[in-house]
């Protein structure tokens, strides 16, 4: 059963976050790095340094995004705030097989909705 890193929210730790287990995502070595610093402080440092994938042994998962990982782990308060305003607009649905950029997607079927 995989475990979740309490620092960065990586959810596939093979062992519990203790006994010098190292998180491949943020690089925290448990019971060493977190012996004197709290998880929140370690997280803040990781974020300030760009939230970069740490491990050179464990491959970064395809599509990995540190901010999405933090949000999914309930740690969204650590995601840097961007001063943007978002508006959602409805309109005709863009089906993939009507889009030039989607030609590489195989076996597309048009939805009837």
């Amino acid at each position, binding site marked *: 059963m995989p475990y979740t890193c309490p620092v960065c929210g990586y959810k596939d730790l093979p062992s519990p976050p203790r006994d010098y287990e190292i998180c491949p995502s943020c690089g925290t070595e448990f019971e060493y790095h977190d012996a004197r610093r709290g998880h929140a402080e370690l997280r803040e440092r990781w974020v300030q340094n760009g939230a970069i994938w740490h491990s050179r042994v464990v491959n970064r998962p395809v*599509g*990995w995004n540190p901010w999405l990982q933090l949000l999914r782990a309930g740690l969204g308060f650590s995601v840097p705030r961007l001063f943007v305003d978002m508006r*959602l607009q409805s*309109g005709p649905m863009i089906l993939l097989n009507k889009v030039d950029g989607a030609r590489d*997607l195989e076996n597309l079927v048009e939805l009837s909705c």
Partner: protein
Amino acid sequence: MLKPYVCVACEKIILAKDNVASLINLFSKIIVAVPTNSPDIPRNAVAPKEWAIFSSWDTELGDELKDYEFCTQIFYPDGTPFGEPGKVRIPIDPGKRAQVTVQIPAFPIGQTGLYTVKTWIEEGQTKVFGPIGFGIELAVVQQDRAQ
């Protein structure tokens, strides 16, 4: 075999007691307004705005005995994936249309253009239907802070 009935993106889904879904604010375009002269948005940036993918499927007799998973993957306009593929089991009642919701806690905003949401069905880790999907256009506009 499941047949697609609908697959859309919306801001929120409210499920009634009888499992009837109300889809709030279906969207196909996102406009991100940034303050004038602000620095470029980082390529991996996200807007922490929760949204959902709702899909509904026509079923046939025997589908209720199968273990179908609804799989989703979002792609940036340049084709690179955003997030890992999501997999959710599709609950099926005999003779009823099946529906499944995928909640996503943020939207990627690091690239402008057409994002694609690709979905497919797996049974026992094997793709048995799809992919199908739709696009969501993202545009960035600059505006004064006072607006």
